[in-house]
Structure formats: structure tokens, C-alpha cells
């Protein structure tokens, strides 16, 4: 049954390149997460506002991001935008796709979190003489982030996992892309992808650990 010789040495020779790919993956995930959080906050406040156009825009964004596969979102950015004569490279398509997805999911989390921050907090801040942006920045958002912190770390892991889809639109310098390159050259599929799996696991754990480290400021009280 098992007449296959594993060739781990060849696979380990590729490790430096794969680590470089892992760094690209990490960067992409982190960037999409930062952008995603910012956009999600904008979407939440748009949805709360009175402007009907902004409200509709936010609602549409969230429902599309949550109800279609993330692979589809990357696809439509990469292939679909070509119809309008806009050609973006695969990394931008991947980043934009994941960011749209992250923003949609995070906006829903934030909406739940915002409900949990008492209204009186905002009013107290305003009556202490803070301007509305100040009150949101200094009072509401820190409390909000505290409530949604654990769902957010989940989303971070998801962002890392989603970066692996870049290979489908032809990205070749992230972890999956590099692995796929080596796979095509050597046909040692199992070895290379096993190492990639281990690296992804480590990146996911690293990101969660980093988030915990950074969150000390949120949970210091």
C-alpha cells in the first residue's frame, strides 16, 4: 500500500523561500485586517447615521460580503473589473477581496458590540465637553474593541487562511504560491504542502499571540 518514498530533504531546501512567502502572507493578512477594521468602523457608523444613501451602501456591502464566498469576491475583483478596463494585479485583488470580506464580517461584530456600549457613556462624554469625534475616539471605540476582541482574533485567523486563495488568481509570492511553484517543479506535493500547513498553523498562532500582546492596552483596567 505504501510504496512511496518521502523526500523531505528536497522540501526542506525550499524552506527559506517558503519562509519568505510566509512573510508575504503575514503582511497581507495584517494589512487586510487593519484596513478591514477601519472600513468596518466606517460601515457601522454609516449604518447608524441618517443618510439613506450611506445606509444603503453599508447594508449592501455587508450583505454581499457575508453572503458570497470570499473566493468569488477575489475572482470578481480580478476578472470582473477587467470588463471596465481596470486591470489590477493578483496581490491587489487578493488584498482588496479579503479586506472587503473582513470589513463585512467585522461590521456585523461591531454592530453587536456597539449595542453593548451603554448610550449613557456617549452622553456623559458629550456633557463633559468632548466633541462628538473625541467622544467616539476616546470613549466608545475603546470599549467597543474590548467587547469584540475575541471575535476579532477569530477573524484575524480567518484572514490568514483566506490569503491562501491568492494562488487561484495567480499570485506566486505568498506561502501557497511559493509552495505551488515548487510543487509544479518537483511534484512532491505532499511534502511541500505539509510544510506549508505547518507554517500556516504557526502564522495563525503567531497572529493570535501578537493580538493578545497588543491587547494589554485594551484590558488594562
Amino acid at each position, binding site marked *: 500500500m*505504501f510504496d512511496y518514498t518521502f523526500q523531505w530533504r528536497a522540501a526542506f531546501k525550499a524552506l527559506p523561500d517558503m519562509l519568505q512567502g510566509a512573510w508575504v502572507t503575514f503582511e497581507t493578512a495584517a494589512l487586510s485586517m487593519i484596513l478591514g477594521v477601519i472600513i468596518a468602523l466606517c460601515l457601522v457608523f454609516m449604518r447608524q447615521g441618517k443618510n439613506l444613501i450611506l445606509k444603503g451602501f453599508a447594508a449592501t456591502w455587508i450583505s454581499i460580503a457575508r*453572503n*458570497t464566498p470570499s*473566493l468569488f469576491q477575489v475572482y470578481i475583483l480580478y476578472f*470582473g473589473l477587467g470588463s471596465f478596463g481596470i486591470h489590477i494585479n493578483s496581490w491587489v485583488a487578493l488584498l482588496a477581496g479579503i479586506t472587503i470580506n473582513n470589513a463585512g464580517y467585522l461590521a456585523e461584530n461591531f454592530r453587536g458590540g456597539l449595542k453593548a456600549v451603554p448610550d449613557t457613556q456617549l452622553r456623559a462624554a458629550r456633557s463633559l465637553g468632548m466633541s462628538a469625534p473625541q467622544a467616539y475616539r476616546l470613549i466608545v471605540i475603546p470599549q467597543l474593541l474590548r467587547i469584540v476582541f475575541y471575535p476579532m482574533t477569530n477573524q484575524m485567523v480567518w484572514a490568514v487562511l483566506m490569503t*491562501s486563495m491568492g494562488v487561484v488568481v495567480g499570485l506566486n509570492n505568498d506561502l501557497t504560491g511559493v509552495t505551488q511553484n515548487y510543487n509544479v517543479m518537483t511534484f512532491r506535493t505532499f511534502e511541500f*504542502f505539509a510544510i*506549508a500547513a505547518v507554517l500556516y498553523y504557526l502564522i495563525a498562532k503567531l497572529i493570535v499571540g501578537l493580538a493578545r500582546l497588543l491587547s494589554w492596552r485594551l484590558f488594562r483596567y
Partner: protein
Amino acid sequence: MFETSFSWGDLQYMLQGAWVTILLTVISMIIGTLAGVVCGMARALLPRSTIPLAWVLDVFRSVPLLIQFVLFNALKSIAGLDWSAFTVACIVLGLYVTAYGTEIVRSGVLSVPLNLRRASRSLGLSYWQDLRQIVMPMATRVAFPGWVNLLLSVMKDTALVMWIGIVELLRASQTIVTRIQEPLLVLCIAGLIYYVMSLVIARIGARLETRWQEND
């Protein structure tokens, strides 16, 4: 601009792809839910001795599904098993569902107050009777929204099986794009099909949820 070579046959091809998507979702959900209930109950009732199980399932949640598909497909060839790509996809997705389902079931079981279980035991129910008639119904209600979310996310994740060569909805639409070169239209139709499928599931889930709560 509004002329298109998208034909009726193409739409049928895409709907066939959508059927494969649904089939994959249903089979993997059945496998995953059954295994998830077993593992989740074990995790909730014997938390100490099942810690290794938690580690193993954590791996399935921390490695991209795409990598899992490729890895498992390669493993199948190495082991000399003559399985179709569809079987491999079902097994990998089933494991993936198991990994998430276990956590959902566990939190559901843990949400049943311990005093309630003590009460049922002191009324003379046996351990298994208590589990089946008191814990399970209450845990189901808590776990159900999470299960629907899982169902939705699995349906979307099935798009990744195109990488091991199964023609599902997204792959079918890509094939059509390659032929008629109208990516925006075809992809929008594919997106619409996904959107409608998710919306239907979400609506049914929400309705079931409210119906169950009426009886409280």
C-alpha cells in the same frame, strides 16, 4: 454592449455546478454534525481527557482549507486509495465541519446550567436519560444559530474544491468565462446564485429559531 453570447445551456451548466455545491455542503454537514456532536459532547463532559482531541481539531481550524484539500488529495494518492475527488472533498469538508461543530456543541452543552442536571438526576433520571432528554434539547437551542452560521460558511467554502478539480458553481462559471469572455456578467450570475442560496438558508434558520423560542 447588451448583446451576450450567454446561452440557456450555460445557465443549466451553472445550475448543475450549484447542485454539486449543495450536495457537497449537505454531505459534509451530515458527516461533520454527527462527528461534531460526538466530539463536542465528549469535550464538554470529559474536558480533561479529551484535550488532545481539542489540539487535533484546532489544527483543522488553523490550516487553510485549500492546503487541506491538496494535502489530503496527495495523501490519498500516496496511500494508493482509489477515491474520487468528490469523496476527498466530502471527507476534508466533513473534518472541517467537525472541527467547528465540536466547539459549537461544546458551548451548547456547557450552557445548560449544572443545577438543572442535578435536579433531573435527583428526580431519578439516569445519566443517559438526563443527557438525552434534558441536556440535548436545551443545548440544541443554544447551538442552533451557530450551526446555521457554520452551514452558511461551509457552503461558501465549498468554492475552494475547484482546486482539486471538481466542477462546482464557481468553477463552472469560470469555464464559461473562458469560453465566452464576459467575466462580469457570468460572475454576477454566479454571485447571485450564491447570494440566493445563503439568503434562503439564513431565512429558514431564523424562522426555525423563532418558532422554537415560542414554546418557551
